[in-house]
């Protein structure tokens, strides 16, 4: 018990709620604690759970709670009667890819307002619902994602055209509301788009006029 309990418990709560493994860096940003204290706390949590049903493990550069391997079989039983649900973050990511394809992770993150974990994208690829359709010619050459035939089949669609237009998903009042709300926030959002559209916009406009 070398540490103040709150830090240990804060870290425990953060790791449980996080969408992705939490790195030391992220934990430091979130708690404001020192590296050594975080390491000590994580080690304490790890040893605390060492012989329980839950384990704290280090994966993909961060910490995550997982079930203890010896209970694999019983845990497996969970999905024999009911398939797992798609998480909200997964659904949002998939919806953005469906509507905005071809799109990059940066755009998905700009729209969701949250960092999108690579787990989610990898999971969707594994599920066969999205695929890389190209790369975007911006620094870093990020992948461009699109949906697959499998996606259409599984969601009962003949083509993407069967998806309702985005404007139909909201009614007049809601659109009006959004417009009012956003007039004040307009500037904040400029940044996110600047990267994806504006620069290329200009190029296109020039060439079109030429």
């Amino acid at each position, binding site marked *: 018990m070398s540490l103040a309990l709150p830090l240990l418990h804060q870290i425990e709560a953060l790791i449980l709620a996080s*969408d992705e493994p939490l790195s030391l860096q992220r934990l430091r940003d979130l708690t404001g604690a020192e590296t050594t204290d975080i390491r000590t706390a994580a080690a304490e949590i790890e040893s605390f759970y060492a012989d329980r049903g839950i384990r704290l493990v280090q994966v993909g550069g961060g910490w995550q709670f997982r079930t203890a391997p010896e209970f*694999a079989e019983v845990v497996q039983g969970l*999905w024999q009667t009911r*398939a797992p649900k798609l998480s909200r973050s997964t659904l949002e990511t998939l919806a953005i890819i469906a509507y905005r394809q071809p799109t990059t992770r940066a755009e998905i993150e700009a729209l969701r307002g949250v960092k999108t974990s690579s787990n*989610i994208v990898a999971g969707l690829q594994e599920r066969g619902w999205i695929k890389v359709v190209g*790369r975007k010619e911006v620094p870093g050459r990020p992948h461009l994602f699109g949906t697959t035939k499998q996606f259409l089949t*599984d969601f009962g669609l003949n083509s993407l055209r069967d998806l309702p237009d*985005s404007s139909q998903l909201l009614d007049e009042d809601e659109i009006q509301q959004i417009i009012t709300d956003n007039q004040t*926030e307009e500037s904040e959002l400029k940044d996110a788009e600047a990267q994806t*559209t504006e620069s290329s916009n200009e190029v296109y406009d020039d060439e079109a006029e030429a």
Partner: protein
Amino acid sequence: MSEALQSAEPPVQGNPSDQHQTAHPNLPPVHLDAFEGPLDVLLHLIRSQKLDIFDIPIALITAQYMEIIEGQAALDLEVAGDYLVMASTLMQLKSRLLLPRPQLDDEGNEIDPRQELVAQLIAYEQYRVLAEEMDTLPRAGRDVFVRSIFPESDEVERPLPEADLDALLLAFRSVLKRVGGEVRHQIFTETISVREQMAFVLERLKAGGMQLDELLQGYPGREALVTTVLAILELWRQHLITVVQSECYGSITLLPQTAEDDA
């Protein structure tokens, strides 16, 4: 501070034919936007002045209520109706209370004309309080958080989740509600078919460059053609493909950016 003290004056001991004919002069000004309707306004008047809800001084309350309504610059027509109906109810009550002979029920007891309004106020107040209490419960996503991803030990093979179109559309709806500005504008003006075609063209160019004519072959109908051309222009604009025309009126070649660079 002084305002608060003044409005917390000793309880007004009203009676049916109460003598207050003018509004309480010390009520702090209120705006209707802060209220959930006429019942909410009445409860505010009653509670803030510590009036007896079972013996509401109707004349006083009516005057105060009318003052608030008349004080509003513009009443939203949709809400106005409810407030005006209450105004007329209060006026009616006021005049009924002035009648020399009260109404009697079947057993000959006096009927208090305020009874119905009081019942309504009490019923509403209960829910108003409960709503506040409900808001203080630790709420998932606001106060407490649950796991949203479920990685298990490597030995566990988690089956694939099932597709759910409704859930997907709801998820996109909530994204649309959150985003704003140019992004929103762009999303609303683009049609899904152009987006679909963009992905399709990119896919076809994955293997390498292609002549425009070749790509456009097999698109019967003007609409499909227009969609494809729009998709190509959009891809070009976004630097996702390169469009090369070697000479004026010459054939147009589409090149995937990646193929060129990877080579």
